[in-house]
């Protein structure tokens, strides 16, 4: 890329709805109109919304699996190296590679790395931390999104995006209010 990328003036157009049913109806309508870059904001996770937006492809399980295997291999490898190669210590004539005794630490290493990968992976994939975002400019969003409001945003990187027509579409769905989100 050459030079600073110019961001579009708008992040998208947001509509607020009163309950999950209205939100789901709006998502269905927007999808029927051919919009693909949709995001919904709900005060608690709603399976049906995630289904409608086709969001069930999280990469976190793979991340956690990878990190757990890494943790297990790393701790076991270290225990083996430390006990059998770098500092061989004869304890009661037991074999230097007394692998069953290394398993508890290995197990904890797997959990430790897997757990951190789940949490950090979630933040990374969600683009957090990011203290500010265009949606926070809407007063009702701040007041209701984390409490009892259901919001739908048609984002400006949608190929069919056109602020005026999106606004018309959303206003036809009887929302509480419609706002344009400036970047």
């Amino acid at each position, binding site marked *: 890329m050459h030079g600073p990328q110019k961001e579009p003036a708008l992040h998208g157009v947001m509509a607020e709805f009163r*309950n999950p049913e209205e939100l789901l109806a709006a998502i269905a309508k927007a999808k029927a109109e051919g919009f693909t870059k949709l995001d919904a904001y709900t005060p*608690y996770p*709603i399976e*049906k919304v995630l289904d409608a937006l086709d969001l069930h492809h999280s990469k*976190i399980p793979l991340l956690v699996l990878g990190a757990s295997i890494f943790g297990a291999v790393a701790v076991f490898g270290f225990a083996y190296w430390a006990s059998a190669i770098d500092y061989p210590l004869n*304890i009661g004539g037991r074999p230097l590679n007394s692998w069953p005794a290394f398993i508890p*630490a290995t197990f904890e290493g797997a*959990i430790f790395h897997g*757990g951190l990968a789940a949490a950090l992976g979630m933040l990374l994939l969600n683009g957090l931390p990011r203290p500010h975002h265009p949606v926070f400019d809407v007063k009702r969003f701040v007041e209701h999104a*984390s409490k009892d409001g259901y919001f739908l945003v048609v984002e400006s990187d949608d190929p069919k995006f056109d602020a005026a027509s999106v606004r018309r579409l959303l206003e036809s769905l009887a929302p509480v209010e419609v706002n344009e989100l400036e970047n």
Partner: protein
Amino acid sequence: MSSTYDDARAADPIAQAPVLAPGHTPGSVTERISEVVTAKLAKTPKWWLLGVAVGFGLLNLFLLAVTNLFMTGIGIWGNNVPVGWGWDIVCFVWWIGIGHAGTLISAILLLLRQSWRNSINRFAEAMTVFAVACAGMYPILHLGRPWLPYWLLPVPGTLNMWPNFRSPLIWDVFAVSTYATISIVFWYVGMLPDLATLRDHAKAKVARFAYGMAALGWRNSSRHWANYEVASLLLAGLSTPLVLSVHSIVSFDFSVGIVPGWHTTVFPPYFVAGAVFAGFAMVLTLVLPLRPLFKLHDFITDRHLQNMAKVMLTTGLIVAYGYVLEIWAAFYSANEFEIFMVLNRFTGPYAVQYWLLILCNILVPQLLWFRQVRSNVWALWVIAMFINVGMWLERFVIIVVSLSRDYVPSNWSMYHGTKWDIAVFAGTIGLFLTLLLLFLRFLPALNMFEMRVLTPEATKAHEEEK
């Protein structure tokens, strides 16, 4: 069989009770829970200030006790040959065990889709984190040279040697540090959406900024929720074997040794059941007074109390089975030292502690068979206190009674905790109380977004899907 069970269940008004009082909406749940945190400082309840005064006072006793310990050495405690592990390890295991109910409630009950846990999981997770903090004090204080705890870790240094990975004590270092880390991570990740709620609803500017930073910019986007739900589920899936492994490894500290009364294979499951038993007792000990103080009857209903009582009864029976099996194993082994250990528990110098333990952990909890007892908050609280004491005595009996009379009678010696042992224990209670009260005042003690899921509005959206 099952129809009798179902009939009994249908006839039980508490089992049929909702987990959230009727009439709540996502908005009302949010307001009700967040108002505790967003209230002005001047409106802090008097009992809270009193509680912090007590907790902080005890915390200062801890400072005093630890200062003396560092300046004088662990000789101020009662530990001495042959009883090298006294109150310090008794209290370490006690605190770690208390922590386990938090993980059980948040992780295992999440995996089992027990939605009644939604109102108590946050609180229980906080209890875990603070109890592990208290537990973590003891091994370090007990080192004798508390400036060298890093020797326990595989840190490359001028010593040019590594910890012994064949030792249960090193397994313990890995287990407890992993447990502390993952508990904090699970707790914090679980709190993110609620921190965002507080960012949006706190009145003071400083509070909005602080919660905003802590919330990391969480904005309830469905894309966030999709990753979040998977991450929570996986954290729960990882925490479940973790909690079982931690107390199993704590029990290895004993069972891998050859001391009579320690060297048995029943220890891991019996320790884990004991931990859950103790932890649920502690949750009840704390929740029962907090429910009226914060007026949380809508969220923590009689059904919650009844379910917790049933878990206590069940795990208590497993623990009782463990006690019986210990006696049986001693005689079955035909090993004179093991048999002596059992008889010494029954009639030796610490018989009082042993029989008190049986009273507290086996006899008293049998009252929980009665529905009238399970639905009486005072009775529940008293039983929970009995169990708290009983579980402390259990660790005392296992550790001290076995060590004080092992093999050679010339090596026997009595052990008594000193006032400094008591001061350190009281001090960790102060640390726990202080942290817990700060948490209750400044962080959401009930999980708001999961409580919103229990409202009719949310369950309706969920049911239509089916």
